[in-house]
């Protein structure tokens, strides 16, 4: 779960990491008052996408009047598909230098990975590999202060910055650990009047660990539809095609998208119905697909824990409830396959057993393909 910048910064500050003075604002009047208080400020759109600055999501107000005008313009604007609903007014910094630092989990080594660079301020993906210092953390040892000093030395920092950076590394890792973070990133970690300040911050919390962090604010992410499906507890991502897709298991769902593309079609979404979803959530998910108004709906199930008869029942429930006004292609094999196929056949739905054939048929019905 991503956190808005201002929430991430509150957490950083609670660990003693310096942040610039700032306030959340959501009306032009708010912004006016805030800038009157903190002086010239950056107005930063609180949306969960990277590269806000380039997309026009960060503007500078020299005075309260300007803050009012700019806020009027920014509130409600579309930023890479996200609507701006609030801004963070933050005291303008005279930045002397920009550093990058982050802690994340490296699945390959199964250890936390800390990355730092003196080429901060841009997305780390755009930084030359040779300018990035990468260090794995032994989870049995964690980060003692010396680790921070080694990192500071590797970056070539000296004096006050050496000391402040070393301390910050310890705190950053503590946040990563304490808060079950997937990513905690400060970029840029700005040098202002010779001292470090977290000018921008990202904090993503491990969704699976949210249950043990009542202190962390739940942040809504994604489109209305995405939120709706996520509420059912299923993984869903919107894409830009016209064939709505449901499959069970993330790998299977990905392979289903691949198969549609393979035959020349364009998937409208990714929907993992889970390894063992029962009738009700499956029907709800299917209802979502119907509401997307696609050209075709393609259900691709290999029953393991998921039982084919349950899937069939979910399909029939939707068909006979809200109705399925577009062509439906069902591929159904595995556990309780016979029963599932029979249930569908009774209501006039023929199920495929081969994934390739089913995918090809879905693409054909969408009027696409080769």
């Amino acid at each position, binding site marked *: 779960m991503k956190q808005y910048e201002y929430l991430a910064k509150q957490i950083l500050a609670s660990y003693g990491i310096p942040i610039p003075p700032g306030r959340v604002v959501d009306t032009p009047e708010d912004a006016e008052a805030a800038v009157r208080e903190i002086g010239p400020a950056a107005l930063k759109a609180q949306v969960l996408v990277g590269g806000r600055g380039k997309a026009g999501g960060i503007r500078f107000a020299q005075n309260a009047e300007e803050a009012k005008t700019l806020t009027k313009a920014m509130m409600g604007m579309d930023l890479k598909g996200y609507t701006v609903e609030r801004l963070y007014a933050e005291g303008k910094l005279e930045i002397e230098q920009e550093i990058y630092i982050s802690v994340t989990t490296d*699945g*390959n080594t199964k250890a936390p990975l800390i990355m730092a660079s003196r080429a901060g301020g841009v997305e780390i993906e755009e930084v030359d590999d040779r300018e990035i210092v990468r260090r794995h953390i032994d989870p049995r040892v964690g980060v003692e202060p010396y680790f921070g000093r080694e990192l500071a030395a590797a970056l070539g920092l000296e004096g006050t910055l050496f000391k402040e950076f070393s301390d910050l590394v310890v705190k950053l890792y503590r946040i990563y650990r304490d808060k079950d973070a997937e990513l905690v990133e400060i970029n840029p970690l700005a040098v202002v009047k010779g001292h470090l300040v977290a000018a921008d911050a990202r904090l993503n919390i491990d969704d699976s660990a949210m249950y043990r962090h009542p202190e962390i604010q739940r942040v809504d992410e994604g489109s209305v539809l995405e939120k709706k499906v996520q509420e059912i507890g299923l993984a869903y*991502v919107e894409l830009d095609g016209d064939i709505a897709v449901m499959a069970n298991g993330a*790998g299977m769902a*990905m392979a289903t998208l691949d198969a549609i593309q393979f035959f020349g079609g364009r998937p409208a979404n990714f929907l993992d119905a889970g390894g063992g979803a029962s009738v009700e959530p499956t029907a709800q998910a299917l209802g979502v697909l119907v509401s997307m108004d696609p050209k075709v709906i393609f259900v691709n199930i290999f029953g393991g*824990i998921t039982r084919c008869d349950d899937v069939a029942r979910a399909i029939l429930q939707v068909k006979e409830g809200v109705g399925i006004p577009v062509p439906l292609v069902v591929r159904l094999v595995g556990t309780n396959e016979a029963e599932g196929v029979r249930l569908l056949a009774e209501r006039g739905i023929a199920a495929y057993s081969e994934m390739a054939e089913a995918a090809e048929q879905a693409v054909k019905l969408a009027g696409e393909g080769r």
Partner: protein
Amino acid sequence: MAILLTRESRVIVQGMTGNQGRFHTGQMQAYGTNVVGGTSPGKGGQRIDGIPVFDTVSAAVKATGADASIVFVPAPFAKDAAFEAMENGIKLLVMIPEHIPVQDAMAIVTRARDLGVVVIGPNTFGIISPGEKTKMGIMPNHIYQSGPIGVVARSGTLSYEIAFSLTNAGLGQTTVVGMGGDPVVGQNFVSVLEEFKHDAATKAIVMVGEIGGSAEEEAAEHIKRLGKPVVAYLAGRAAPPGKRMGHAGAIIERGRGTLESKEKALTAAGATVVTMPWQVAEAVKKLV
């Protein structure tokens, strides 16, 4: 022959009295797994389908000599269960639950390394050795068949799809390993390939990968020195960059993790790379 899990493995089920645990204990027994006991704190002394239930793994191991365990407890209790197993001498640990916090998974896997425990998962369908008629997992029993193919996959249903297509093509399996869909899991392609390398019965290997991470690239390095033919199928061709696809954590970062880089590395290493799941069996047939 098989890898990691054999007929000798003495298996306990942690969380055996829950719905899932009870159901899959039955399924495992039906398949032939030597399930010697189960645990459920406070329910020790009961029997379920003739299998004794213990309060602790310690008691279960003492009474049954178990050396393998499959965990069905809810995610918040999974770390506890894993440590209980490992600290009591379990050497093969299958972690079924999904939604285990990554920090917990990291703690489990780190400790496992120190203690020499093989962890399968978390968020896995498990491991099955059809030739030995034994499994620790939640995969459907009927889709597998004994034979010379080793299969290693990241995610569940996709591996069922492929295993079943192999079976239908007359290509049975030595062992099918599900590494698990989470960001941090106990195994990687390299560690499982290394096991298959030393299993005389395994003549060819199928790798089922995904976009994201760099496990496939690392596997490619290993395949060069493997001495056995490999067919690789990778899912996620149609996935747009930067989007997370379910819990597979399939996010493409920095060139590493793209399908192109993975396929290129695997092809260069001598593996046969196919584009769609239904092409796997045919490709394997050409190799054995």
